[in-house]
């Protein structure tokens, strides 16, 4: 029984990790807590739904297209809203408040456009196959989710650790001013990061949408809260932290629901958040609380 | 007055200060000099309680500063200015200085709630005193202006006045003349001498040799986290170790 829960936890945790990755990327590189990440996640989900429903796109293509759409939205938000605030050197909380505004707008617009009720993927589009290994029950979907999440995370890790681009991003994360003086195209990389982070968020949205087969304008909100818990747990701006934190949360939630009560599922994330903030606010891997200019 | 006893400070693996011993006497002007990165600002941060020493102890007038929080250390009589000026930009000059008097405004909650005479009297006295302190640094004519509108040199002087407002016994000045032109430096030098006459003790960090040698009664030299010399300016000037410590660096003064 426990092993089965672990499978479920792995699947859930990978998506949490994927979502948190985008979130933590934006914080690490741009220095902004982008509270519209949840709304972008939700729009990624709707994009895939629409593409599959209206254009009969195959699922894998819809995923890629949804990532593209989400990434573009993220880029636009950065260009229109975060960029002017960067130019003004606004204190940290200001961009965060602006992204709250974006989140509300996008959520409300989605509600107006698509309706508030849960939508499902068209019959037959979600892979139904499942396998039984020993007494473990695995669905093709779960495998795909874990596989895709892990793939995207690996790509991100490789880029960050082993490429020139990754080095540049890490330099910016340390100090944008210093990076600029080193000749790095800081502004351009900000755009790229916003795009990539949003794309990851969109991917997470598609995977969650498939996983629960329920897409609503409000699905971004609880996800955002969990994302916050994960990045604080793992250390803000730390990629390893987001991944491990996401998995940790997945496990904590699944085990809580299985062994305590499903009522408290949503409270798990915040319980952990509180605990970590009291004990080690910088999170599991975070080192720097204050970012240099 | 302020005694550093075998103070050491490390950040993780980085040893910033080791076996630092010196004593700032009462009623004089004491200078701390040393090449960049020697650990001078760390000394100030330790004295004001912003950092805790890794080893050793700091005494102020016989009292161990141990784990006393910064605002209480200020109450005990140590005030400081900052290397990279930390004035309250969106407040007026007058308000900036009045904040310094925070601890000495003895009215209770009911006083401020009901606008009692005691409240009004204390507030008015505070403003007057603030104006007086501003006049010491020749900024009283700008009292109602926003601190943000001041020039760099003026902001330094404002910080100085604000530190004085806390009724300190010992004033810690962190590079008080950095970025000032020669005329401003001379003015501040005169002002610090006046402060000494008024009974304050001064402990300052500076790079400007002429300033330090001309002003201080005693000087200590910090290099790589260790005190390599301490004594009157003339001795220090001719100390071979000190000269060597500075020879490696390009000092523009």
């Amino acid at each position, binding site marked *: 029984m426990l092993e089965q829960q672990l499978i479920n936890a792995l699947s859930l945790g990978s998506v949490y990790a994927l979502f948190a990755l985008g979130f933590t990327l934006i914080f690490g590189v741009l220095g902004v807590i982008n509270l519209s990440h949840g709304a972008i996640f939700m729009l990624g989900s709707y994009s895939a739904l629409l593409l599959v429903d209206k254009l009969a796109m195959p699922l894998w293509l819809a995923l890629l297209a949804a990532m593209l759409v989400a990434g573009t939205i993220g880029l636009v938000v950065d260009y229109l809203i975060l960029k*002017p605030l960067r130019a003004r050197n606004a204190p940290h909380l200001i961009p965060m408040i602006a992204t709250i505004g974006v989140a509300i*707008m996008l959520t409300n617009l989605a509600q*107006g456009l698509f309706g508030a009720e849960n939508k499902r993927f068209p019959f037959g589009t979600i892979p139904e196959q499942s396998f039984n290994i020993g007494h473990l029950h695995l669905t093709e979907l779960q495998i795909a989710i874990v596989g895709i999440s892990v793939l995207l995370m690996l790509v991100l890790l490789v880029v960050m650790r082993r490429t020139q681009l990754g080095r540049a991003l890490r330099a910016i994360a340390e100090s944008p001013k210093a990076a600029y003086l080193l000749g790095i195209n800081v502004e351009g990389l900000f755009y790229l990061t916003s795009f990539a982070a949003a794309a990851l968020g969109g991917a997470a949205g598609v995977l969650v949408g498939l996983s629960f087969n329920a897409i609503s304008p409000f699905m971004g909100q609880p996800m955002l809260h969990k994302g916050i818990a994960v990045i604080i747990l793992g250390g803000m701006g730390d990629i390893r932290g987001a991944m491990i934190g996401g998995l940790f949360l997945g496990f904590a939630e699944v085990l809580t629901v299985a062994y305590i009560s499903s009522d408290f599922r949503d409270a798990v994330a915040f319980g952990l958040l509180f605990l970590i903030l009291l004990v080690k606010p910088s999170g599991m891997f975070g080192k720097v609380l204050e970012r240099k200019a | 007055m302020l005694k550093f006893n075998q103070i050491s400070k490390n950040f993780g693996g980085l040893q910033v200060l080791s076996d630092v011993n010196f004593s700032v006497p009462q009623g004089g002007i004491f200078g701390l000099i040393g090449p960049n990165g020697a650990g001078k600002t760390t000394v100030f941060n330790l004295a004001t309680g912003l950092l805790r020493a890794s080893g050793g102890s700091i005494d102020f007038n016989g009292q161990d500063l141990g784990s006393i929080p910064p605002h209480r250390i*200020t109450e005990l009589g140590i005030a400081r200015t900052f290397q990279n000026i930390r004035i*309250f930009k969106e407040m007026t000059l007058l308000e900036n200085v009045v904040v310094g008097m925070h601890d000495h405004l003895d009215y209770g909650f009911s006083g401020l709630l009901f*606008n009692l005479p005691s409240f009004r009297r204390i507030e008015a006295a505070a403003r007057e005193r603030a104006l007086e302190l501003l006049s010491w640094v020749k900024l009283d004519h700008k009292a109602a202006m926003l601190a943000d509108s001041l020039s760099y040199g003026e902001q330094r002087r404002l910080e100085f006045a604000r530190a004085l407002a806390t009724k300190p016994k010992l004033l810690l000045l962190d590079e008080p003349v950095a970025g000032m032109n020669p005329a401003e430096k001379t003015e501040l030098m005169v002002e610090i001498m006046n402060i000494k006459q008024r009974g304050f003790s001064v402990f300052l960090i500076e790079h400007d040799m002429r300033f330090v040698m001309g002003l201080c009664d005693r000087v200590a030299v910090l290099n790589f986290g260790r005190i390599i010399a301490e004594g009157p300016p003339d001795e220090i000037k001719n100390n071979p170790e000190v000269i060597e410590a500075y020879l490696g660096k390009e000092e523009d003064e």
Partner: protein
Amino acid sequence: MLEWWEGFWATYSAVVYGIGVNAMLALSIYVTLSCGLLSLANAAFMGIGAYAAAMISMNSGLPFPLALAAGAVLPALVALIIGIPTLRLSGVYLAMATLGFGEVVRVIVLNMEITGGPMGLNGIPLKTEFWHIALLLAATLYLLARVRRSKIGRAFEAIKADEVAARLMGVNVPAYKLFAFVLGAAIAGVAGGLNAHYTFTIGPNNYAFENAVDILTMAVFGGVSNLIGPTIGATILTLLPEVLRQFKEFRLALNGLILIVVVLYLPNGIWDPRRIHAFWQRRKAGKDQ
């Protein structure tokens, strides 16, 4: 004439009450913002106050003022307890922690029997009258104005400007932050208590993240340089949905848009004394030519 007034009042009394309550809420977040703290917990504190006051009114014979007092004291106590550890955190972390706290409260209330679970409390006696709200709002404004003019207000401003420098000027920063947090919680709690007693029914979803954001929007929109800003912000944003009734569906989107526009173009909100002053200076200069 009297008939018209009675008709008007029957329809719009809730709106007028709403202005008063929202003004208090906006002021409650103003208190913490004036100290440099972004607290997204005030909706939760409002909820705690509302539930406390309502449960007292419904389950005991205690008079209304006592219920309201409980509505102030209970959130204040909670704020005191969670404030001590969480206020050590800076800016963004604090905002996240308060957001988290708000959610935890909501989930707890959602699942408790005595608070009526997801259905909330129904049948709260209608005790709030216009003069209650007017009086308490006036008292709040007076209290905050006096605090502003005193060393407490200056300490807040100093902490907001530069916490470290404030500490070194002798300001007991942790104590003052806690005071601002607790005061904000108490004000929000009273507003909640007042609100509960004219809305007849309350539920956990009245005090969720969206509501915390609403409160923040009102304060930021109005401007947080002084007390007038949040009051005006609350008034306009309470009236706006009435004016824009046909756009009811997109009211939230409009809220979001307002937040964005204000942050981008009116960083100090609508009521920004400095901008207004500069505007008049320029007009005068223009006229003198």
